[in-house]
């Protein structure tokens, strides 16, 4: 199955994906599937999106040679700078594309879920730009962990609804957004924030995020003259990783690594490593790897980074894992804190805690000496300053 033919017509990536959604949502999912098949190659739509990505988001984002960090780690390291995209993370690529699509579909209201708040901010931003009302569901715990992003969303005119169910984090926010959508599906579009959810969302979000890897591969070849040997990204739901990987999947000399959040231990409940420690299961409309107990109840998760704190993962990653087209590893909260500080001190870049997991993983020198490595730096770290300050003061989250 090549990227062009993945998924099949039922939204399957091998055994994974599909559409385990309430019947009431199926007509909207069908409408979205048809619209996307038609618009993704439509010159008018593509042109409008490309213009916005250039003029508003600031694409292409550069790649930066991490010279001092390379010296420290013994690699030749380049960073794809999604932290420099408007709103500070890759999430805007998807949000803008989906809000534009929703307008084409005649939808009058936008809803979204958010964990770290980056997707919520990106969606609120796209709605402000394109003139649609926006409601963002956010776990109450995350509204505290990522308080500055709540302020941003509200300034951008969005309504932020705290979700108090369960662990009060990303999973519950998605549940609540799905419930809203079941009631409002005729007039509302649900801008899902990662490559998760029922078909066509994993495909739609991948197609909107693949600009990361398409740009980066060209830029890397321009600068280095060849492809990287290793491409590494952090994996929460998996959108920045899929966005980066898609340009490289199946390229013989390139190996892909996804870094999951290892939290504070490998026991169930202490991490969010769905691919490395989970089993296949169904959550939020798709079959993929999932952290669950012996009865198939989805378990609580832990990560220092709200954006990775999710028990599931996009179905295409499950496929890439089973087919050995990508390798998945995990990095702990401590690794992330180390990576966060190391990148700040050696490169003058304060990363988000999510991609800081990648830097933390690289600190253990898992790759051969001198390896040519391209890292997706998915976002910047302003939102995490309180969390990091508290953690460094010994007051671990």
């Amino acid at each position, binding site marked *: 199955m090549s990227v062009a033919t993945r998924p099949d017509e039922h939204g399957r990536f091998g055994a994974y994906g599909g*559409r385990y959604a309430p*019947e*009431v949502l*199926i007509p909207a999912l069908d409408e979205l599937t048809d619209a996307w098949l038609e618009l993704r190659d439509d010159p008018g739509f593509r042109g409008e999106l490309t213009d916005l990505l250039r003029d508003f988001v600031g694409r292409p984002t550069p790649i930066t040679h991490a010279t001092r960090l390379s010296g420290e780690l013994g690699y030749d390291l380049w960073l794809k700078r999604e932290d420099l995209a408007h709103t500070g993370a890759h999430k805007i690529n998807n949000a803008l594309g989906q809000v534009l699509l929703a307008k084409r579909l005649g939808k009058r209201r936008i809803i979204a879920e958010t964990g770290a708040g980056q997707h919520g901010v990106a969606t609120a931003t796209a709605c402000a730009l394109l003139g649609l009302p926006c409601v963002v569901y956010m776990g109450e715990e995350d509204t505290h962990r990522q308080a500055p992003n709540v302020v941003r969303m509200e300034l951008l005119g969005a309504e932020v609804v705290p979700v108090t*169910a369960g662990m009060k984090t990303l999973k519950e926010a998605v549940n609540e957004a799905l419930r809203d959508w*079941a009631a409002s599906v005729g007039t509302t579009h649900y801008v899902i924030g990662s490559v998760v959810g029922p078909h066509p969302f994993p495909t739609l979000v991948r197609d909107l995020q693949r600009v990361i890897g398409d740009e980066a591969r060209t830029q890397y070849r321009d600068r280095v003259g060849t492809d990287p040997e290793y491409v590494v990204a952090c994996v929460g739901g998996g959108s920045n990783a899929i966005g980066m990987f898609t340009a490289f999947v199946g390229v013989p000399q390139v190996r892909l690594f996804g870094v999951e959040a290892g939290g504070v231990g490998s026991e169930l409940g202490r991490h969010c490593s769905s691919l490395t420690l989970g089993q296949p299961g169904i*959550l939020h409309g798709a079959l993929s790897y999932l952290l669950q107990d012996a*009865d198939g109840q989805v378990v609580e998760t832990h990560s220092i980074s709200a954006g990775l704190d999710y028990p599931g993962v996009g179905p295409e990653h499950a496929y890439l894992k089973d087919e050995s087209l990508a390798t998945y590893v995990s990095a702990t909260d401590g690794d992330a804190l180390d990576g966060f500080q190391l990148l700040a001190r050696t490169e003058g870049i304060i990363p988000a805690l999510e991609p800081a997991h990648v830097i933390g993983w690289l600190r253990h020198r898992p790759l051969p000496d001198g390896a040519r490595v391209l890292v997706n730096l998915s976002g910047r770290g302003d939102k995490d300053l309180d969390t990091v300050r508290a953690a460094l003061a010994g007051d671990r989250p």
Partner: protein
Amino acid sequence: MSALEATLRSVRDRGAKSFVPYVTGGYPGVDGELLRSLAASGADAIEVGIPHSDPIMDGGVIQEASRVALQRGTRLGGVLAAIADAAIEIPVAVMTYANIVHHRGYEAFCDDLARSGIDGAIIPDLPVDEAERFVALGAARGIDVVLLAAPGTTAQRYRAIASASHGFVYCVATYGVTGARDQLSVTARDVVTAVRPYTDLPLLVGVGIATPEQARAASAFADGVIVGSALMAPLVAGDPKAAMQLAEAFRSQIV
């Protein structure tokens, strides 16, 4: 024909309407005695929820009931055993989410139900497109996999759902999730009318039926009514007596 379908058909054949109460398995007070009382109050079948951590088709009341049930250690096996032990005469269908079935294994899950004397399964996040194998495995064991039809879809889909469903067709009354509504939604009748030409199965309306009056109105065009959150609300408020009184009031209006 399974016991569930046979029962609902015989109710229709005698010109009556079916009353199917829903209760969340494992919630305090949802025990054999409660199931027997519901049967004694005139319910034609009972739907028992197997609680799930992520009940995306459920509103606040059933979410809370599920949370409490799981917190006190409710397991799949325990709910099934409680149903078997209750030994009630009327058919029972379980309602749960796809991952509970998937994790157990579709075949093993059907075997479990058959062994527990359970007659049907309702999985709201398993639409017809994903349900083929489960429907067949259930049918081979006398388990009716009941599919849901919802507002706003195409005639072609209503036909596919009607042809694949077993036991009855669950006609979702309204856009949205379970939980009380002020009024019976006009879409309830639309769904029943749209499905009717494609099947002779009984058509039951559920989701959002809050009062005996709404249930009565739905009975005018459907073959029966499923009542969930409205009955769970007094249970969650700690008043099982009120829940039973309400069940009797529903029963008397579903005619």
